[in-house]
């Protein structure tokens, strides 16, 4: 087993544990921290795939900016411990079947995909070292429309926040 494989398994386990912790933790700050753990584990997985830039941005944006704001807001509002309601009727009758369907679907597609990959022996592409330059060229030529639309979306969100904040004052 190679070192990369070991790191992959470790990060996968950490990511799943973090996700479980996110749902099960009753303290909102603990949930937020679990989510940070998931983000960091994902960033390491990106690193393993040779996408160092994406990995760095993943940590910088998600773990370093968005989640910090989450934690900040939780602290500011001093949100208390969550009250646990045993599964609501909606969760019991709709949620559990849907979750099972989703898991089966995912397992099937994984197994199916893996079978096909194994059939096309050796066709598995190794990690591609995508340089930042290649990435930015793609971003500003092929994907320029979604990229600009995203920035407009964020601009709208900022304006919305400003309007709401003005109303309070």
């Amino acid at each position, binding site marked *: 087993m190679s070192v990369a494989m070991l790191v992959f398994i470790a990060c996968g386990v950490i990511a799943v544990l973090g996700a479980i912790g996110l749902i099960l933790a009753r303290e909102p*700050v603990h949930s937020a*921290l679990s989510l940070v753990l998931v983000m960091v584990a994902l960033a390491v997985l990106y690193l393993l795939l040779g996408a160092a830039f994406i990995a*760095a941005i993943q940590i*910088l944006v998600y773990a370093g*900016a968005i989640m*910090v704001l989450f*934690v*900040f807001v939780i*602290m500011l509002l001093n949100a208390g411990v969550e009250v646990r309601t045993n599964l609501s009727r909606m969760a019991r009758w709709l949620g559990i079947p849907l979750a099972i369907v989703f898991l089966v679907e995912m397992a099937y597609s994984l197994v199916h995909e893996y079978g096909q990959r194994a059939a096309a022996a050796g066709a598995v592409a190794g990690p591609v070292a995508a340089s*930042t330059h290649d990435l930015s060229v793609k971003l500003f030529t092929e994907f320029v429309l979604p990229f600009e639309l995203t920035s407009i979306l964020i601009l709208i969100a900022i304006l919305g926040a400003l309007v709401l904040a003005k109303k309070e004052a």
Partner: protein
Amino acid sequence: MDFVTQHPVLVVSIIKIAIALFVIMTALAYLTWFERKVVARIQSRWGPYWVGPHGLLQPLADGIKFLFKEDIVPPTADKVTYLLAPFLALALALTTLALIPIGPASIQVLGQATQLVISHSPVGLILLFAISSMGVYGVALAGWSSNSKYPLLGGLRSSAQMISYEVSLTLSVVGVLLLAGSFDFYDIVGHQAGHWVHFFPRWEIIPQFLGFICYLTAAIAETNRVPFDLPEAETELVAGFHTEYSSFKFAMFFMAEYANMITVSCLATLLFLGGWLSPFPPPEAGSAWHWQLYLPAAGLIIGGIALIIGGLRSVQWNAKAVFPVLGIVCIGVGYLCTWASVMPVIQGPFWFLGKVFLLLFFYVWARGTLPRFRYDQLMAFGWKFLLPLSLINLVATGLVVVLRMRS
């Protein structure tokens, strides 16, 4: 030896990490000594004086004191987060230093040629920002998990401050990135090589002076230091986010703060001050600038002689004994630096560490001179002055780069 031959990179990395950790820990300890001495000098005091000659063993005494103090955990604290916060702060602060190269030369370790950096990444700069952006957690969680009024206020203040100033910090660096066209520290420094009119070094501080000012200001705020040390303002918040921390956990926050100071100084050196490049024209053989190769040795030998004379003239008996020995060691190391095999390797680290030291002095100087901001002033300064300034710098630099590409 079998393991060494099988995993050369791993073993060499571990050796480098061990050496770097030792050096950084010592540097952190003596940075506190340096700061106390310089601030004392500014305020016409002596500073630490009695533990060892001129208080040289004070950091060691402080460390031992912290280790033996009772470790009090507040009963209402959120245990896991409370214990996690100082580790997070220190670990993240030390990790960023792994990405900082200190010289261009490669050295031989166990028959492996290796660079003077622990981890060389093509996206080094952005990776460094990513890791340091996580540093907020240490402070915020410490404030929250203590479950006490002052730490919570300190934690909230520092989160708000660090989030605000991180924007300016990152934007002020983008100008350098646009000019250098790379996230790799080696490329960024390489882009600053050469001289204008054969004399002025092509360091980014000249075209990016605005960016440098923004960076320096935002960096002081990022590291929570005077005049931006609102998170731990003693007069208002006892000790801010680490009020409830005692013993070595308290020391860890302090070490993290000093490690962050070193990191931002290293970053400023790499980005704006030409990293390990000498300010003088290249010292080719026969050139009039050849003498600069002997500067590290000369500095050490002069320092050693000064130590010997100062020690012999001192009134403290322990200074009389210790300083001459230190001086002789300095002269020995200085002589070592004139060897043909050592001299080219030592040049990069010499200039790099020299510039970092100047910046650290600037930090301490600022602390000894400036009063603290008021909280609303701090926020207004960050958002209404620093951010627009760094944006103007960014737009202007972008314009110049585009125009240059056109022509």
